[in-house]
């Protein structure tokens, strides 16, 4: 578990990242590193609603599951990446270049997957 926490904490230092969290498919926060003012429970609730709604509509349309989602909003950005039994949520400020942080996000995903398998 500490390896997942370490990976999340490291990702948090990437430019423009305001917070990151690993959330299980049923909406529990497995690990998180968030800026002050960001509530992990709120983020887990909102992101599980988003992932569940999107996945349900995709499955009903025989599209298969969503592996990654990127949201670009007026005052911030968010990336959600599906892991095995959970997903990673990364929140950025509005000025962040998400494409530039792709490498860090991918690395974190690999580290979390490896740590989950070992566990």
């Amino acid at each position, binding site marked *: 578990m500490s390896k997942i926490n370490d990976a999340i904490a490291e990702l948090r230092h990437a430019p423009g990242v305001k917070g990151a969290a690993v959330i299980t498919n049923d909406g529990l926060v497995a690990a998180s590193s968030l800026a002050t003012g960001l509530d992990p429970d709120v983020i887990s609730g909102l992101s599980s609603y988003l992932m569940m709604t999107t996945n349900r509509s995709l499955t009903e349309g025989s599209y298969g599951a969503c592996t990654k*989602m990127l949201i670009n909003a007026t005052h911030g950005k968010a990336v959600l990446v599906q892991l095995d039994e959970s997903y990673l949520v990364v929140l950025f400020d509005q000025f962040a270049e998400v494409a530039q942080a792709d490498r860090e996000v991918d690395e974190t995903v690999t580290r979390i997957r490896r740590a989950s398998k070992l566990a």
Partner: protein
Amino acid sequence: MHLIQRMKIWKELRRLEQRAKEQPSPSTFVDLGQVYINLDLNDKAEGLAEDGLALFPKSIELRQLLDCARRGLRNRRAAELRAKLTRAPSPKLFRELALIQMDLGDSNALHATCQQWSLRFPDDAGCWLMLGQARLTSFYRDLAAREGQEAVQCLERAVGMDPKEVQSRRLLSEVLYRVGAVHEAQKHVQVLREIDPADQEVEQLLSHIATLTDTGAELSVLLDEVESHGSLRNASLEAAQPAPSAENSISEVRTGLARVLELAGVEKATFIRGSKAMVKGQIKDGRDPFLRIVRVTAKAAHRFARRLDIGSASKTIVEGDFGRICICVFGEALAAAQCASDCDVELVLSELQELVAGALHAVEE
């Protein structure tokens, strides 16, 4: 207020805030907004109404809440300005106060302000312009000859005091040609052209007036005619200009969708506004799952962003074994495309954005 009473109110407020978060609906937002307004927290009520309208854009109650909150904020600002004017009067403060009172529709207060303004600063034409504007608004609404006469008098006085002032002359010329005093209006528009020869709008106005016929009657007679007929003799420049036709707007959307579909890797594209959707590419009919996925995802992303306090979700990308679905939202309009994993997402999104922005004024079919 008693301490216990105050504690009870704050407790109720917290309960309503929690309810609005957990069960967002127009009624929960309005209940909370009313408490904010009662506590004189109009700025919070305004923010809440805006958030609510983002989720429920057709709610009349939320619009009323927004109006009420804005009215409260204007009243507060008006009180501040009145206090400032007592200490240090200036034309700028008088103008701001008069504008707020005009927005609030408080004509008595507006007249009192303009009276004070003209007494303190008799050489400033601003108060006559404000009064003229207020009278003109009433005239266009009720078509009462007396209001029209007073509006013209106020505007003529403003023009006489400051002949280089454009706004009063423009308003005066408009009311004159609309009631039928075309020659008189033409003179004012000629002066406007001399003031700013590069103004295209003045040129348009001049050519619009040239198409109208002058009745040759006195202004008071013309105003009486307007009152008895219940309509103005001539249409305004804006009303006379042809509106963008539905066919033009829709053909633009169609062309935009075709352009998106031409991009490498794009399989299907859609433009959705309200309950109507226009599609291009491999889409069978209105029941194609792609349309539902786009609608559901856009709505979920919008709620996610609003509740997370990061504004409105304008662009969303969903990736999976099917490739990518790119969605671009602006106001009520939404454009989306399904494309292969290796396509240029930035290019697709920029085309979708162009499509949505260009179609904002599209007239509903």
